[in-house]
């Protein structure tokens, strides 16, 4: 009886996450079947288990293109969702997300500088598959851009005591950086603007297996770093003053949370471009699916749900049944916006 009321328990843990994990696996496999050619599920499974597909070319498509794409989607979804969750809890704001402190603006500034200002022609080869070096150039530019923003935010966060002030400052900072990007766009050649816009659409397909070798360990490290913070995050739900009265060193935890969330979001943005809404919407979805506010449940929940949503967005952007590809960012926004609206409506119900 008593144990039944305890919200954290291994058996319950398994009971919650087994279905979610199964759903994730199903969507993952489904994503592998989609692309410019449809590949039947049995061939996918055959290739994954070391066999060969019924068409020779399918094997290399699955291993070289589809698998990295699906891994990228899962990783990106997971990190954006966790990053958003951390920001929502830190700022106690349901509309906070991974990019709320201007991380994505920093990344786009970096990319804009490379594509638009430097004009080295990198943009042209962005989606042409052969431009691995170019991609790394963009990744580096985006990373430096978001790291710069992160550094400035952290510098300010050390001196400012109120989380709300940091939040407002971050948002304003994002606007300012975006304005600089607009100025760059205004003075650039049309074709370069075109490649910048292509980057800003976001894509999971541009990340190669080689890129994953960098992206995967960084994200995994950050997710592991987030886990020991669950206890502090739970206390922060009550606000800074309560948390600090229970022994949370708010300043340290805040710096750590901002860093982890920003590196997660910054890494995804550097490799995939800005991917909107997943980071805001998934934490709300996870809270609803798991019916919990406990971060020991929510963080793994956001990892799985984020992966599922990102894979679903990838499937939708590859338009099943056609070889057209929609901009990823539009698809995530089209999925994410209704979720956020629904959540806000629900908050109002609860408030009454």
């Amino acid at each position, binding site marked *: 009886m008593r144990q039944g009321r305890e*919200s954290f328990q291994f058996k319950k843990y398994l009971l919650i996450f087994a279905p979610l994990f199964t759903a994730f696996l199903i969507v993952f496999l489904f994503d592998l079947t989609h692309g410019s050619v449809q590949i039947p599920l049995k061939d996918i499974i055959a290739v994954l288990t070391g066999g060969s597909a019924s068409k020779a070319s399918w094997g290399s498509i699955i291993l070289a293109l589809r698998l990295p794409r699906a891994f990228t989607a899962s990783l990106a979804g997971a990190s954006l969702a966790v990053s958003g969750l951390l920001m929502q809890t830190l700022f106690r704001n349901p509309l906070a997300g991974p990019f709320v402190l201007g991380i994505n603006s920093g990344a786009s500034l970096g990319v804009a500088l490379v594509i638009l200002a430097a004009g080295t022609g990198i943009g042209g080869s962005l989606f042409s598959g052969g431009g691995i070096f170019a991609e790394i150039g963009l990744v580096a530019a985006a990373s430096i851009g978001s790291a710069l923003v992160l550094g400035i935010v952290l510098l300010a966060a050390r001196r400012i005591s109120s989380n709300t002030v940091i939040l407002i400052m971050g948002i304003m900072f994002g606007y300012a950086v975006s304005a600089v990007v607009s100025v760059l766009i205004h003075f650039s050649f049309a074709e370069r603007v075109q490649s910048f816009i292509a980057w800003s659409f976001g894509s999971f397909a541009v990340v190669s297996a080689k890129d994953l070798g960098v992206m995967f360990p960084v994200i995994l490290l950050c997710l592991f770093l987030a886990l020991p913070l669950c*206890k502090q995050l739970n206390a922060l739900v009550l606000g800074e*003053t309560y948390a*600090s*009265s*229970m*022994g949370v060193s708010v300043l340290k935890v805040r710096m750590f949370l901002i860093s982890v969330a920003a590196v997660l979001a910054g890494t995804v943005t550097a490799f995939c471009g800005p991917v909107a809404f997943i980071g805001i919407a998934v934490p709300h979805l996870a809270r609803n699916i798991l019916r919990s*506010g406990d971060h020991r449940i929510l963080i793994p929940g956001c990892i799985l749900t984020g992966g599922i949503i990102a894979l679903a967005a990838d499937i939708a952007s590859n338009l099943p049944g056609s070889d057209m590809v929609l901009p990823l960012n539009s698809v995530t926004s089209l999925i994410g916006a209704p979720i956020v609206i629904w959540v806000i409506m629900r908050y109002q119900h*609860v408030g009454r």
Partner: protein
Amino acid sequence: MLEDRSSAMKVLLETRDLDIGYRNRKKISRVASGLRLQVKTGELICLAGQNGAGKSTLLRTLAGVQKPLSGKVLLDGSEIISHSQTSIAKKIGLVLTEKAEAEGFSVRDIVALGRFPHTDWKGILTPADQYKVDNALNIVGADPLSGRLFTHLSDGEKQKVMIARAIAQETDIILLDEPTAFLDLLRKIEIINILRDLASSGTKGILMAIHDISLALQYADRIWLFEPEGGIIEGSPEDLVLSGAIERAFSSEKLTFDPVSGQYPVYTRNNIKIALKGTGRVVYWTAKGLARQGFKVCSDDPSARATVIVTEKDGSFLWEVSVEDEILSSHTTVLSMTDQLKEMFIHRS
């Protein structure tokens, strides 16, 4: 016996020549200075003062959240600044005015957060922790709410749960910053009674900031009173009333505090005296009704313009208004009686 009790009262928190306030780069704004105060076990102390007097500043300084301008805060005999945050969290619990929100958390989850300084990094509760959480819920009478979502509770219930959380934190001291500010009178008194019981159990010292002086006078063991000049005087409610300190601190140009009733009397607009005769509680409430309408109530006075005699019969009351021993009217409610008197003396003149 008496000596036993006072020696059993341990000093938990102490201030020495403490100056509190805010320090900017250029300016120091002092809120209060020269404070020598003690929080002991077994006491409910009410920190009283008008809005803006500095109650929150003092609480923040005592909790170690804010640095004093000068002087010391001693927690268990050593300076609070030298304590780690966890060590303070094990000794001082905090309850605030602000309405906490916690999406997805059950009442029990919230109370369990109180175990924060006592659990390991994973925050997993041992059976002993579980017991303490149950016990805390029980003390505030919130055990029936245990499984409900915190966001679904009323303001009063939420505040009880936040107090249960502070109890689960197992601290010697609980500081509360206007915990009842948003609650209706009944909830206020419920909360204060919980705190009184907690203090009188003898192991905790409780300090509550409250701007409602009539509640403080009624329920506090001791009052710390912010004086308009920027100091704090302390004493039992009675001593502070008798010395005139409460009157000084809580009177304004338009209102004076009445040390006899412990309340603010209604501002009297005229000098018409009414004699009131009768017995029991009905006399008290009749006098209140008359006073609110601006009459001066006396028991027997030759200069009284009219006499009201109230009698009780079979659980119902009768008010008779007479002038010079001639009964002019009789009434079954206070309202119609006072209306009659207003008609006679105020509207006509």
